[in-house]
C-alpha cells in the first residue's frame, strides 16, 4: 500500500508535468490541443536524437541515472519542440483561429496529432528505445517502500516549475497578457496587446514543458512513437480534474490520476486500471463541473 502511494505520487508527477503545459495552452489558446501529446513525444525523441548524434551518455550524476549530456539534450529538445509548436501554429492553428466555432481548432489538432505521430514513426521507427540501457535499481527507503532517485528528481522539478509558472502568470506583464488573451482576444488587441506575440510565447512555454515531460517519461519508462498518445488521456484527465487553465490544479490532478491508477490495482482487476482515472474524473465533474478548482489561467486567487 505504502509503495503504491509513493509510486502513484511519483508517476503522477510526470503526468502533472505534461498536464501543466496542456492546461496552459488549453486555457490561454482556448482549445483542447490533442496534439499536445505529440509535443511530448517529439521532445523525448529530439533529446534522444541529440544524445545519439553527440554519441554521449557520459557518466551519470549520481544518484541519478542521467548526466549532463541528457540535461543539455533536454535544452535542445525544448527548443526543437517549441519550434515545432510554432510551425504548427503558423501552418494550421493560425489560419483556423478566429473561426466562429473554436472546436475547429480541436479537430485541427486531431489531424496534426496524426501527422506528427506518423512523422516520428517514419523518422525514428516503431521500436522502443531508451536513453540508457543501465537499469536504475530502486532504493529501499523503508520496509516495503522503494523509490528511484529519478522519481524524486521528477517530483522536485515539477514543484519548481509549478511555482515558477504561477509567479510568472500572476506577476509578469506577459503572464497578464496571456490571461487577458485567454478571455477575449479582440479586447486584448484593442488594449494594445500583440496577441500573436502572446500566442507565440504560450506555445514556447507549453511546448518546452511538454518536452521536459517527454524526456522524463523516456527516462523512467521508454521511448516509442505512441507514448504521447497514450499519455494523452491521463494528461487531459489531470488538466480537467484541476480545472482548465489552473496550473496548480493540473498538478493536483496529475497526482490524483497517478495515485488512482496505482492504488486501484490493489482493489480491482488490473485490466480495468485504465478506467479508474475516468471514473474519478466523472465523479469529480459530477460534483464540480468545472474541475476541482474553477479553471481560469493562472488559477489560485479568486
Amino acid at each position, binding site marked *: 500500500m505504502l509503495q503504491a502511494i509513493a509510486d502513484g505520487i511519483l508517476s503522477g508527477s510526470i503526468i502533472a508535468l505534461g498536464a501543466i503545459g496542456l492546461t496552459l495552452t*488549453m486555457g490561454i489558446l482556448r*482549445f*483542447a490541443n490533442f496534439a499536445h501529446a505529440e509535443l511530448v513525444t517529439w521532445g523525448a525523441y529530439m533529446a534522444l536524437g541529440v544524445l545519439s548524434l553527440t554519441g554521449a551518455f557520459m557518466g551519470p550524476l549520481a544518484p541519478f541515472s542521467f548526466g549532463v549530456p541528457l540535461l543539455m539534450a533536454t535544452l535542445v529538445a525544448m527548443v526543437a519542440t517549441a519550434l515545432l509548436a510554432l510551425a504548427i501554429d503558423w501552418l*494550421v492553428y493560425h*489560419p*483556423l483561429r478566429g*473561426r466562429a466555432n473554436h*472546436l*475547429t481548432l*480541436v*479537430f*485541427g489538432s*486531431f*489531424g*496534426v*496529432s*496524426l*501527422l506528427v*505521430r*506518423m*512523422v516520428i*514513426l*517514419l523518422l525514428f521507427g516503431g521500436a522502443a528505445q531508451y536513453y540508457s540501457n543501465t537499469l536504475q535499481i530502486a532504493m529501499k527507503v523503508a520496509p516495503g517502500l522503494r523509490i528511484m532517485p529519478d522519481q524524486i528528481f521528477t517530483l522536485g522539478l515539477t514543484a519548481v516549475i509549478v511555482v515558477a509558472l504561477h509567479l510568472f502568470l500572476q506577476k509578469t506583464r506577459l503572464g497578464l497578457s496571456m490571461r487577458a488573451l485567454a478571455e477575449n482576444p479582440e479586447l486584448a488587441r484593442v488594449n494594445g496587446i500583440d496577441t500573436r506575440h502572446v500566442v507565440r510565447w504560450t506555445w514556447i512555454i507549453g511546448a518546452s514543458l511538454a518536452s521536459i515531460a517527454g524526456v522524463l517519461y523516456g527516462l523512467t519508462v521508454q521511448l516509442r512513437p505512441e507514448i504521447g498518445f497514450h499519455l494523452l*488521456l491521463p494528461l*487531459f*484527465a489531470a488538466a*480537467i480534474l484541476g480545472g*482548465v487553465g489552473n496550473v496548480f490544479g493540473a498538478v493536483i490532478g496529475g497526482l490524483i490520476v497517478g495515485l488512482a491508477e496505482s492504488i486501484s490495482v490493489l482493489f480491482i*482487476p488490473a*485490466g*480495468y486500471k*485504465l*478506467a479508474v*482515472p*475516468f*471514473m474519478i*474524473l*466523472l465523479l469529480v*465533474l*459530477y460534483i464540480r*463541473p468545472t474541475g476541482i478548482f474553477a479553471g481560469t489561467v493562472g488559477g489560485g486567487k479568486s
Partner: protein
Amino acid sequence: MTGFAAYLVFFLIVALTYSIVVMGLNIQWGYTGLFNAGVVGFFAIGAYGTAILVGPDRAHLIGGFGLPFPIAVLGGMALCALAALIVGLATLRLREEYLAIATFGIAISIQLVALNFESLTGGAQGLVGLPRPLFGLFDSPASYNLFYLGVVAVMAGLVYWALETAVRSPWGRLLKAVREDETAARSLGRNPARVRLEVFVLGCVLMGLAGGLYVGFIGYVSPLDFLPILTFQIWAMLIVGGSGNNRGAIVGAVGVWALWAMSGLAISRLLPVAYQSQGGAIQVILIGLLIVLTLIFRPRGLIGEAESVSKHAD
C-alpha cells in the same frame, strides 16, 4: 460478380454502416453541440448487444440466446439507449471538451468491459461464429453481400429521411437553440437538460444500430473492433462531410472511408516494395492532412451546415 464490383459492394456496406454512426453523431454534435468523443463505446454496445442476443449457445458464455437477427439488433439498440441514458444523466451537464473527455473515458471503459468480462463478451477472444441473417438463402457470398448492401442502404436511407424530417421541423430549431444558448432557451421555457438527454440517447441508439449491422455482416466481434481510433475516424468523416448536415454525414462517411481504403491500395501499388512497410504511416499522414486541409480550405466541410433549420421558416 467479382473483382472491383465485389469490392465496391463490400466497401459500400461498411461505408454506409459508418454513415449511420456519423448521422447519429451529427445529430449530437452538428445540431445540438454535444461533443461526444465516446462514439465507439456505443457502437460497441450495439454490436455486443446484438452479438450476445443473436449468438448460438456456448458453454463458457452467459449469453447465446440465438434470437432472430432483427430482434437482436433492436435489443442491442435498447441496450444502447439504456447505456446512453445512464451516461447522459452523469455527463451531459458538462461543456464541450469536458464532455468529450468524459465520454472518451466511458468508451474506454466500455471497451475494457468487453476485454475483461470474459463470460459475457468472450474477453479478448471475442464472440466467434455468429450467424449472419438469412445467409442460408443465398447461393454465393457475393449475392449475399449484395443483399446485405440492400439492407444497410435501406436502413441508412430510413435514418436519413427520419432525421432530415425531424431536424427540419421545430425540433431541429429546439436543438439548435440549446446548442447556441442554454440560458436563453431555459428562460424561454425549455428544459435543455431534457433536450440534450433526448438527443444523446437518440444519437447513441443510431450508433448501436450501426453496431448491430456491423456484427451481422462480419459475424464476429472482439474488443479490437472498438479501439479509440474508430472514434477519430468517425469524427473525421463528420468534419470532412460537414457537420450540421445529414447529407454531409453520408458523403463524409463514404468519402473518408474511400480515401482510407484507396490510399492503401494506391500506396501498395505505387510505393517501391522496399518501402512498403512505411505505407501504413503514409496512409495515416494522408488522413491527417485531409482533416487539416479540409478545416483550412473548406471549414464547413464538403457540404456544410444547412442554412435554415426549419423548412417552415422559409
